């Protein structure tokens, strides 16, 4: 049976913890709103560039050719993994790292491109070579996306990797974030090959090749940019949930221990009264 003082100390320490988790919860709640707005603001561009690429594929048919679309025999794989910089967000980072390991399936030669400090830390002991690593929150996402796209493009065109997959978190809702795996390179223009006849054929200026050469790098860069936005929003959502739970749990524990504390105090008071009464009786006798 713990003493009254021990119980009181525990309640005090729990209240401190709860204050911290509550603060983190509120910070995540405020940030998630901002991140969600950013994410939503990127959607019109996503729709437009996807649509443009499709139309390009339909009009130009199978004649499309660009270094970033070149499918070749896969000898070395590349994997771009996005995680958060910080923990305290439940299983968020571990889920992403697990999805990445599943994707690799023990392929120790695959080159890793890591975004986010947590991913790098958790993968410290993998045999896979880390080609490049960036923190998630160091600079503006547009700039970060450009840098990542540049590095990956370089490695892909030089033949260092023959295929690049992306593992990032998809923001479904505040309650659900799902690790997803998509293929980044080579880029496949949907609709390529099934040529759309006649009326809908697009004219190109200056020509198909030039439009494609300008469009594909932008498309890659934007895809990475969007994944960064979603991963960031997912991180905040995961932290919001984790910290809400932590705050609630701390509250429950505080209630329980306060109850035990009160019982102990009552017991000691009862005992004291009994002793006083007993003493008085003895004196009377």
């Amino acid at each position, binding site marked *: 049976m713990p003493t009254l003082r021990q119980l009181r100390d525990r309640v005090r320490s729990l209240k401190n913890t709860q204050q911290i988790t509550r603060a983190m919860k509120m910070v995540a709640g405020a940030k998630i709103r901002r991140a969600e707005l950013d994410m939503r603001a990127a959607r*019109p*561009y996503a729709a437009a560039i996807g649509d*443009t690429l499709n*139309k390009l594929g339909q009009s130009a048919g199978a004649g499309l050719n660009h270094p970033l679309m070149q499918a070749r025999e896969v000898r070395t794989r590349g994997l771009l993994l996005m995680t958060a910089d910080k923990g305290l967000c439940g299983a968020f980072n571990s889920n992403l790292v697990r999805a990445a390991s599943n994707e690799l399936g023990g392929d120790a030669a695959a080159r890793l491109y890591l975004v986010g400090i947590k991913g790098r830390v958790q993968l410290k002991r993998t045999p896979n070579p880390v080609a490049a690593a960036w923190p998630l929150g160091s600079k503006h996402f547009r700039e970060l996306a450009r840098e990542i796209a540049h590095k990956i493009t370089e490695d892909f065109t030089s033949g260092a990797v023959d295929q690049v997959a992306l593992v990032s978190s998809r923001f479904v809702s505040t309650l659900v974030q799902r690790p997803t795996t998509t293929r980044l390179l080579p880029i496949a223009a949907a609709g390529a090959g099934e040529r759309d006849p006649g009326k809908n054929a*697009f004219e*190109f200026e*200056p020509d198909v090749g*030039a*439009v494609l050469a*300008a469009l594909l790098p932008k498309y890659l860069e934007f895809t990475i940019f969007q994944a960064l936005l979603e991963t960031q929003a997912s991180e905040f959502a995961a932290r919001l949930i984790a910290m809400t739970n932590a705050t609630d749990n701390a509250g429950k524990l505080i209630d329980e221990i306060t109850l035990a504390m009160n019982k102990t105090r009552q017991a000691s008071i009862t005992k004291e009264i009994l002793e006083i009464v007993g003493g008085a009786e003895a004196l009377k006798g």
Partner: protein
Amino acid sequence: MATTHLLIVTPESKRFEGDVEIAIAPGSAGDLAALPNHAPMLTTLRPGIVTARETQASATAADAATGSRFAIDGGFMQITPDSVIVLTDRAVTPGEVELESARAEVQRAREALAQKQGVDDSKERIALAFALAKLELTGRGEA
């Protein structure tokens, strides 16, 4: 009068959406105007100015006189008979241009360009053209 649906988007936001009578953009092979019922077309864009003349219905009083103008730093334009989509990295309205910093940008881009002789200077050229477009948007010169 017939209209076409114009959409100007950047990765960060939707800058313009509305029905316009005409949209003029700096195509890579020369400025081009998209009217309703234009043949389907995909083109790359130079840095420059996109001008749209809105219909009376969708334009606010201030826009109606001048139309909507944006300085862009290159990108793409997709034209179909009933829509025009401009994809660009940056699109700036006249109200957003800060005269002093735009002038400084022109200055910096000129200097950077002068230093890069013989090397690939496409980035600097784009920066300069974009800065100049921003200045042009304000209607005031470099001085």
